């Protein structure tokens, strides 16, 4: 049977996203080393802050509240072989982290070094980039605070 040629195509574009008052303020907060949340319709503090209540769809306004800085791991997975698009280039944990004062968890990376150092309930603190780029990854990773 004939060997078939392989074709390769790339779908690539540098998108430029306008973030609006809530997402933009959250990202701006990261630059200043702050994690911000928003009060949901039922009074719960949601992090990262949505513009509309995830349950009711109600508008939540633009007033953000600072949470953390410490947080607690709610659930996690160990990434043995990070992909090029992952936030860290060495093995790490993707985790749901509930910052102190928040009622929801945010997905992010925990730079724990070794899976043996990870557990649900682990107390973690955010580590911010020294040169922010305006992305969620300005919060570079969380690390153990114990």
């Amino acid at each position, binding site marked *: 049977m*004939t060997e*078939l*040629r*392989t*074709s*390769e*195509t*790339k*779908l*690539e*574009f*540098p*998108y*430029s*996203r*306008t*973030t*609006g*008052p809530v*997402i*933009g*303020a959250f*990202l*701006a907060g990261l*630059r200043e080393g702050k994690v911000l949340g928003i009060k949901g319709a039922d009074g719960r503090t949601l992090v990262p802050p949505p513009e509309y209540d995830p349950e009711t769809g109600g508008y939540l306004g*633009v*007033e*953000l509240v600072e949470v953390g800085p410490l947080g607690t791991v709610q659930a996690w997975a160990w990434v043995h072989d990070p992909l090029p698009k992952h936030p860290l280039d060495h093995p790490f944990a993707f985790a749901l982290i509930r910052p102190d004062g928040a009622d929801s968890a945010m997905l992010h990376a925990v730079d724990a070094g070794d899976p043996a150092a990870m557990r649900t309930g682990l107390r973690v603190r955010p580590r911010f980039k020294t040169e922010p*780029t*305006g*992305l969620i990854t300005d919060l570079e990773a969380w690390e153990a605070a114990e």
Partner: protein
Amino acid sequence: MSTDSPARKEEMVMEHLVSLTYRERLTPNLNRFVDRILEGELIGHRCPSCSRVYVPPKGYCPLCVVTTSAEDEVKVSDRGILTGFTIITPVAYYGQQATDPFVYASVLLDGASTPVGGQDITGVAHGRIHTGMRVRAVWRPPAERRVEGITNRGWGGLDAVIESFEVTGEPDASPEDYKEHLF
């Protein structure tokens, strides 16, 4: 929070590069087409049901919805009729390499039922190009033929094998011969 101060607006823009790579084998019908164009020959598949000839071969006839195979392969000419064209002034966008106005024409090769699209037309001033003109392929030298741009998604790539279609100077074809190929 105010959303209208200039400082805030700048912060509100987020740059996000999305880059995905797709690698796949050419389908057997297209692979065979590539084999032949490297040798300076154009082929298609003749539908066993309606006899229409598709160039390049799709592996099926979309009108009869029947599959076609190597048994249905036919050779077509590298000469044909210009059935439609426009002249494009390229719009600048990320990844766009074209800068100068270029011709974008469809050529119905003799023996084919479907035109090959996106072809350059040479040997005539842009202003004199018209449908019905007889044209022939100007093949690149064998060593310079590149086929990497040909994909299963069917977005051309033929220009890296055939430089352009030049006007032959033969009399124009009658509209009757190409009026069904206005695409």
